[in-house]
């Protein structure tokens, strides 16, 4: 059943396509594609620090991707990861900077606050869907922009640090997630892997997870079986929001130690990419997040040492999404279908 040559052919096609597209975009910049790919790989895993940085970079991508994947399994589409991430981040930064919190629980509070705030933000979209039947595709998208403006206002206004223009205060040392070891990894990668595995186990081995899967596969069957698809979708949307908020909190706690305007541009959408590359399956999202993290980190080095801007990676991202979700190419067995009924 596993046709080996089939797999090799399809994977080979994927790799060739990516290389071709990258080469074309890269040569536009005057650099030789080989130089560029070399720099990319150097930056991604050329030395232990690079590997650590790549893994660290994957953490918010995995978590953000899971924020899309989990709701998707119930048939809800969470494109509001960016906004949920931002509000989670600023809430985490605020709590992190509070002086009178016992150090032992400070980090936990920071992460929990981020997750909770992200969940609340997603709850807005969930309620809009539950009460007013607004499709979450649009509402989560629009909420992103509202979140951006809101956090920008907060960072430059009420939550502003005295010595900064549009940033919050630094969080307390106890609330930070520092890297350690030769790789410079911080604890976030553990969180991310546990979250991915947890969701996998939830969906496959737990009854509540089974409800989610059935709701996503066949809402009518779910309803006949006594489930309530609308409620299920609302709940997973909120849980997804908590994952995105957690991603934002981790970014604050591990990387920036504060929130500032424009602190993670596009991170939420990169999480969506990770989910799509992983065909919205929990383990796939883990792989997708890791792959994207390595790619992005490598692109930074590529940017510094060659003339190729790091944004060239976005082109690779887009091509990857299309190639992997293409049913015609059949590179992955699971189908990804989002389109709804008549607009």
């Amino acid at each position, binding site marked *: 059943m596993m046709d080996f040559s089939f797999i090799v052919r399809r994977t080979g096609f994927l790799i060739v396509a990516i290389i071709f597209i990258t080469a074309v975009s890269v040569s536009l910049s005057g650099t030789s594609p080989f130089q560029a790919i070399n720099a990319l790989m150097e930056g991604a895993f050329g030395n232990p620090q690079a590997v650590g940085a790549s893994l660290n970079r994957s953490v918010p991508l995995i978590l953000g991707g899971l924020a899309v994947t989990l709701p998707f399994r119930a048939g809800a589409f969470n494109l509001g990861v960016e906004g949920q991430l931002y509000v989670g981040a600023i809430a985490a930064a605020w709590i992190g900077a509070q002086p009178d919190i016992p150090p032992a629980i400070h980090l936990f509070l920071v992460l929990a606050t981020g997750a909770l705030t992200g969940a609340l933000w997603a709850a807005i979209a969930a309620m809009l869907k539950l009460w007013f*039947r607004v499709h979450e595709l649009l509402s989560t998208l629009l909420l992103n922009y509202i979140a951006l403006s809101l956090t920008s206002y907060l960072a430059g206004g009420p939550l502003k640090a005295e010595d900064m223009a549009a940033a919050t205060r630094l969080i307390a040392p106890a609330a930070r997630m520092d890297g350690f070891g030769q790789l410079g990894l911080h604890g976030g990668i553990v969180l991310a892997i546990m979250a991915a595995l947890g969701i996998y186990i939830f969906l496959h081995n737990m009854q509540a997870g089974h409800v989610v899967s059935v709701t996503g596969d066949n809402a009518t069957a779910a309803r006949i079986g006594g489930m309530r698809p609308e409620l299920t979708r609302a709940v997973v949307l909120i849980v997804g929001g908590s994952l995105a908020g957690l991603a934002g909190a981790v970014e604050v706690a591990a990387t920036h130690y504060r929130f500032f305007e424009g602190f993670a541009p596009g991170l939420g959408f990169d999480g969506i990419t990770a989910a799509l590359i992983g065909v919205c399956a929990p383990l796939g999202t883990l792989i997708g997040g890791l792959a994207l993290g390595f790619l992005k980190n490598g692109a930074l080095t590529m940017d510094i040492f060659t003339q190729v801007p790091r*944004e060239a990676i976005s082109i690779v991202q887009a091509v990857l999404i299309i190639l992997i979700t293409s049913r015609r190419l059949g590179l992955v067995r699971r189908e990804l279908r989002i389109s709804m009924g008549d607009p």
Partner: protein
Amino acid sequence: MENIVLGLLSATIRQATPLIYVAMAALVANRAGVLDVALEGKLLSGAFVAAAVSALTGSPWLGVIAAVFVGGMFGEIMWTVHKRLQVDIIITGLAVNLLVGGATIMLMRIVFGVRGSLPADMITGLPVLVSKPLWLSYSMPVFFLIPLVVATYVLYRHTAMGLRLRAAGFGDGEIARTYGLDVDRLKRWSMIAGGSMAGMGGAYLSLGFLAVYVDDMSAGRGFMGLALALIGRSRPLPVTAWCLFFGFLLSLDGYVSISVLPSQFFLMLPYAASLIALAAWGIFTTNKGG
């Protein structure tokens, strides 16, 4: 006082113009049965291409033509990827948005060697078509909207072609196919037309009033237009009216002083208003999706 009213009026029209273009593009796609999430990317690509071509050639008109062409091209590419590679159209749209977001930044660095924004003196903007009265002085894309909206209205309501387009977008196109319509061709051309409109809207963003291009200039207007097309039930006249109202909301930013309310509030307002309007729309219709 009169100056403020007229000032608000022109600001409203200037803000509403790109919205109407995108909303029309969304409308055309909706009629073809497609929820075009790539409008944000098409709008941004239109803005970038128009500014870049204008900077390279000195002619804003070439910029507009290039923007319209590129927008239409994206529509065609999206449809081809959807049909040939069988990628879900919404995923395709998301990929286009990603690609445009990265490519514009990348090309700006490679071609112009700058980051963040194109220097204003590099770009030649579109000339104003009417010098006075001041509240009527806009560049071409604004005036072009009038025949565009009218034509769209007439097309879908009173022509045979409009009927065919609507039929193609109905359900999964099975009924249209039964009647011998080439559904694929009709949808494809709808996407191309929509993309061109979005491209024109983008050209107006960068060249229409001030000659500026800034990274991620579209700032969610593509999604706003999408929401507006839904709120207006994909009908040209109501959609245009909504766009004008939202253009007014967007123009408030420059007119209410910061001490009253922070400027970010006015940035949030249109999006929040879109949500509220969508919610209100949901109460009054039965939603088949979701």
